């Protein structure tokens, strides 16, 4: 193989790798960008923002989850709660549609702690003793 051919292949590999890297670094807008781009803003208080949607909570939850994958999800009869690295998103029913709340993790945990306590942090509440697995668990 000639040197020019080798260098052409090396350049192709490096170029594609560089493009993929740039897309990975610059491509995602994060959960806050996704909500701002796709839902109607109702109110804001610092990092706490409320959006609204005409869609029902389950559809909104599925849309958000598929666009920006959360680290964890908690479900309650009253809504969906999505955990991101720095934020907490809640999707609840409202006037035939949905309300979407996003807060930083501390304020979000305080706002929704009756629903997420015991799962994502301290406090007395649900889920603290949920156990899993049986004798064969983890096989």
């Amino acid at each position: 193989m000639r040197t020019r051919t080798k260098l052409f292949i090396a350049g192709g590999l490096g170029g594609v790798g560089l493009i993929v890297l740039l897309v990975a670094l610059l491509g995602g807008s994060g959960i806050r960008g996704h909500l701002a781009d796709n839902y109607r803003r109702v109110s804001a208080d610092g990092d706490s923002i409320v959006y609204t949607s005409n869609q029902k909570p389950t559809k909104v939850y599925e849309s958000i989850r598929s666009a920006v994958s959360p680290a964890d999800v908690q479900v309650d009869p009253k809504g969906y709660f999505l955990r991101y690295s720095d934020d907490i998103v809640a999707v609840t029913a409202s006037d035939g549609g949905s309300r979407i709340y996003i807060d930083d993790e501390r304020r979000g945990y305080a706002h929704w702690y009756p629903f997420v306590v015991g799962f994502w942090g301290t406090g007395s509440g649900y889920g603290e003793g949920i156990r899993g697995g049986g004798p064969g668990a983890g096989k």
Partner: protein
Amino acid sequence: MRRALVTLAAALLLAAAPGTASAQVIFEPSDADDLAQKLEDAYQEQGVCYGWDVDVDNVGSQQESVGSNFGADTDVDDGTGDCDATVEFQASIRWTSESSEIEDSASYQVVSSGSGPTTSDLDSLEIISAEGMAGDNVGLEVYKAVSALPLLAAEAGLADPIEASPAPPSEARADNAEPTDSPTSDFLRQSGGAFLFGAVLLVAGVVFAIWAFRTRGQGSRPVRTAPPPEYVPPEWYDPNTARGDVRPRPPDQPEPGTPNQNKTRPEE
């Protein structure tokens, strides 16, 4: 014959014996009560009855976890309230012994009256899987799945959705509630795979380029040929193989159009 009859009778008795029915098969008692209370709150709002029924084959020992809006350990069909509709999460789990070659397994379904939610509706939430139920997270996955039933019922039009508002921060402060978990990075979760793939491609390109430079010329170097001699003895000259443009002409044959400048063999 008699021994065979006794064995058959014992097997029938074992099969007919009721398994253990308790919500605590997969939940701690407090969590089973919490879940039943959630369903009760939903029932009060929606008029729909919700419940769960999970059969567990625990290394041959039959156990059952049941509960509903009527309480932990109470089957949704055994409740005393009126139900506009019924939605129940049903599952079957088989735990085998550590020494068994048979893997643990699980299956589940959502059974609704009328046009209620279906198993595929639950699957679309991606909060439960058969593999997860057979593993370490069975309690948590069933808890989430059962908690989602009122949401799915509202989505299916079986009942009105239940609204919720943020709690006052004072409640959380009073309970010393704060997040203590360590969620994975959003960037790594979203773009980690692409980032790694791009980095590998980039490094591969650089390594390939370095290799290409280091091996430059090897295998493709032109073959060096010796320059034609200045003098060819006439007796060596073979007119059958001579190429006029490469080899010098013999000394007795001057080039056309040039004066005779025959080279003579140097005297020794």
